[in-house]
């Protein structure tokens, strides 16, 4: 090989080596946790708490009056204690001593009062949660304002809510809401502007400091967090549009923590040295909703409006095998609308009399039910059904699950057509289209709340337009007695009596089968073993993203200081020396160019 070519090749090799070397070291500063956000829509964060309450953003930045322990039971947060008057009209919260915002200003009862005023008057997304302390006001964007005297603050540590009528849901919705700093947001019109992250103040363990759209959201540790300054200096949320890229980043060490990993990838990640993989149930309930209208939108008869047909469908499905095959053990089989790991003020609302599975797997009995319902087999099938599901929401596991449902229904001669739609089209078809709908079944989910009213009200009541266009009760289940029970539940403040109401609702729903419960979601979570201190379990069920992690534990997460290396552990690598690499690459390019021109001159001379 000629001399000139050798030099050029050597320089190119040097340059590539330098470029590649920069990838061999983990480019991370110490004490930083990088969290991959893949399935959560990262862009739904204009960082304006009155608009879209993006969970990871607010949960880390703004604390509530109360929190939840890892078992989903209420515990003090900003409030150290509270009292509800026997008539249910007065709620008194006492704040902890010495609370401070991240800028050192004290957190007082004035901040609490201000918060509810802001959300009532400026947030069309959230104002309706606190009607007992509101009055109509046409001057605000929401049409409501805080009633005079609804919130009193006799001293900086005490805040008192005065309700016009008892409300069983008020405690959770008020005490579980993020408290905003008055001195920061006062005077800001949040209907028109977003907070400035460079100056924002927070009460949580971390303060949002930088947001690069589509790329990352950076939090700095809050030295004034009441639980003590976090061990980590920063948490960085790195946005990935696809979970595959996020998982690759997790394996290479570019990110250190990831939730909501597709269940089918759990096994692969478990075999990666240095990664800890865990499962934890969150608060999401996945179910099939039946269209209960007698006819579809095209006028054709709707077989699933018949209870026996619905029961037959339930009995045709070997749910545990379907779920195992598609989710690989990352699930908890469901049998009722209330999620078992959600507790209402320490009490379980699950109805233990409902069997698991809800209906036994028995294809012979299912076939008989269908025959008795007037759907015998003709030309190899009884009838055709459609099932709508959202593309991407359930991943390949969800699609596989429905394919298995399709196969099992074939056994009883029901022909099921799966209709996959992208999110907006699916939402339109399932929820926003006026009844009767154009589908027989739909795959749906609901993120439960620590107040049992949510699942009961939205899944199975027909109150206040809940079965009309936009209503969550998409199947049109309309049971007057269930409606009465839901209203009773909203107005019963006695905890035991309230729990009994919701257990009764679950029992009725099990009998009527407007929805077929599939499973309660179990999240697959993975993190780099060099980090310790994560506590799994329902952390803050008001904020969905952290459903399977007690997010407050992030304040205690730290990096393990390794003294020995094993095949299973990873060490904190030195930061990449970009300066040296830059110099090497530039030198390599310069030498290559010089060699080329020297070679040309030599050739011309000869």
């Amino acid at each position: 090989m000629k001399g000139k070519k050798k030099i050029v090749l050597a320089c190119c090799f040097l340059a590539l080596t330098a470029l590649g070397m920069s990838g061999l070291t983990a480019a991370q500063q110490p004490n930083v946790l990088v969290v991959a956000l893949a399935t959560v829509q990262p862009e739904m964060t204009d960082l304006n708490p009155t608009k879209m309450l993006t969970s990871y953003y607010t949960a880390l930045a703004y604390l509530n009056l109360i929190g939840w322990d890892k078992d989903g039971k209420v515990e003090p947060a900003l409030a150290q204690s509270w009292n509800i008057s026997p008539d249910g009209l007065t709620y008194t919260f006492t704040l902890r001593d010495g609370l401070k915002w991240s800028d050192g200003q004290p957190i007082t009862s004035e901040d609490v009062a201000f918060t509810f005023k802001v959300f009532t008057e400026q947030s069309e997304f959230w104002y309706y949660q606190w009607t007992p302390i509101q009055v109509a006001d046409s001057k605000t964007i929401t049409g409501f304002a805080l009633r005079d005297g609804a919130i009193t603050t006799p001293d900086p540590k005490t805040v008192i809510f005065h309700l016009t009528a008892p409300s069983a849901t008020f405690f959770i919705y008020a005490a579980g809401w993020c408290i905003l700093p008055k001195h920061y947001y006062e005077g800001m019109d949040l209907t028109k502007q977003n907070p400035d992250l460079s100056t924002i103040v927070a009460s949580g363990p971390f303060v949002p400091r930088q947001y690069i759209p589509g790329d990352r959201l950076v939090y700095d540790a809050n030295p004034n967090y009441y639980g003590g300054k976090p061990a980590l200096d920063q948490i960085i949320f790195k946005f990935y549009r696809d979970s595959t890229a996020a998982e690759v980043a997790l394996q290479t060490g570019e990110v250190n923590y990831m939730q909501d990993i597709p269940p089918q990838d759990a096994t692969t990640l478990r075999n990666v040295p240095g990664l800890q993989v865990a499962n934890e149930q969150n608060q999401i309930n996945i179910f099939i909703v039946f269209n209960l209208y007698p006819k579809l939108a095209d006028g054709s008869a709707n077989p699933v409006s018949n209870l026996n047909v619905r029961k037959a469908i339930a009995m045709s499905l070997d749910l545990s095998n379907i779920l195992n095959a598609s989710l690989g053990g990352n699930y908890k089989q469901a049998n009722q609308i209330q999620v078992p790991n959600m507790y209402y003020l320490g009490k379980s609302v699950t109805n233990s009399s409902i069997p698991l599975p809800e209906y036994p797997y028995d294809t012979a009995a299912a076939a008989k039910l269908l025959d008795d319902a007037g759907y015998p087999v003709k030309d190899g099938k009884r009838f055709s059904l459609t099932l709508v599901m959202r593309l991407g929401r359930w991943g390949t596991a969800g699609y596989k699950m429905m394919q298995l449902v399709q196969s099992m229904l074939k056994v009883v001669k029901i022909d099921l057509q799966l209709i996959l739609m992208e999110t907006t089209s699916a939402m339109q078809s399932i929820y926003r289209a006026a009844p009767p709908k154009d589908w027989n079944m739909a795959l749906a989910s609901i993120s439960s709340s620590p107040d049992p009213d949510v699942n009961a009200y939205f899944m199975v009541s027909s109150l206040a337009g809940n079965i009309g266009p936009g209503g969550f009760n998409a199947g049109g289940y309309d049971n007057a007695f269930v409606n009465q029970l839901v209203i009773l539940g909203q107005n019963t403040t006695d905890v035991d009596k309230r729990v009994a109401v919701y257990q009764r609702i679950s029992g009725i729903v099990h009998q009527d089968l407007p929805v077929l419960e599939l499973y309660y979601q179990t999240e697959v979570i993975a993190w780099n073993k060099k980090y310790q201190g994560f506590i799994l379990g329902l952390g803050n069920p008001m904020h969905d993203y952290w459903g399977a992690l007690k997010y407050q534990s992030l304040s205690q997460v730290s990096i393990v200081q390794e003294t020995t290396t094993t095949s299973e552990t990873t060490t904190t690598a030195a930061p990449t020396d970009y300066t040296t690499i830059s110099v090497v690459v530039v030198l390599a390019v310069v030498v290559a160019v010089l060699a080329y021109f020297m070679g040309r001159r030599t050739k011309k001379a000869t």
Partner: protein
Amino acid sequence: MGLGSYIGRRLTIAVGLIFVVATLNFAILHIAPGGPEAVLLQNPRITPQARVLILKSFGLDKPLHEQYLLYLKGLLTGNWGTSYFYLQPSFDVIAQRIPATLLLMIPTLLLTISLGVLLGVFSSRKPFSLLDRAISSFAFFFYSMPAFWLGFVLLTIFALFFRVLPAGGMTSVTATTFNFFDYARHLVLPMMTLTLINVANFALLVRSSMIEVLDQNYIVTARGKGLTEQMILYRHALRNGLLPTVTMIGLFVGFILQGAMLTETVFSWPGLGLLTFDSIFRRDYPIVLSLLFIFSTMIILSNLITDIIYGFLDPRITYD
């Protein structure tokens, strides 16, 4: 007709075309099932009264024809609406993403054209030789691959197996200051994906064009004069062989935008492609309509510019 008249006529047509495309974009977006309310209002806890308020705050309660007129007026006055999700003017949201897209598109364009031309020239030297067949096979192989699939393959090979390149993003997660090589490292995979898929267009076009040119009498004359093969190829043949490539560049702007959408999704590159992808699914009408307007204008104008440049490059072309 002189150049000035030609440009004037083409610009007039371009304006009309842009108007038609803008109208079609509006119509198609609103015909598509579902709307922003399906995403904005997916929280079931939002009451019916609140839903009305939310839709009103975004102007979605207005009749469609009124929304269309407001949209046209906005295009003309530079007010492209406010994003439903960012709560910022669409123009600002898009402007934030433009640098990332330019950073991906310009190097890709340059590399694709350079590599494509080089491969095309090498191929054309000895048609149907082993080298020619290898280059054509290489080109077709990558041309037939879906962009997102190729992206995942490269990600797996270089980021996961060899760990020499990052898994996504535009900079290292903890980068606090600008570093050229950090950007360069992150650029490699998305750029490689787009280049490999699109290089075939140029390689095959240049190849066939060069084969035709190399058959011309003046090339035979040049050989007869004793010029080196290198000089014949690059000094005499390539200038004429590149003419169809100029046209291709105008079309390529559209291809690369389309490819960028998928590539940016795979590599989480925070550019316009990713913004388009997300905004379409969210039905963020102001953003989608603004982006479609920008893209369609870019494609129409780039084709116009290409046609004009073509006239300068080829004296046989007249502006009639």
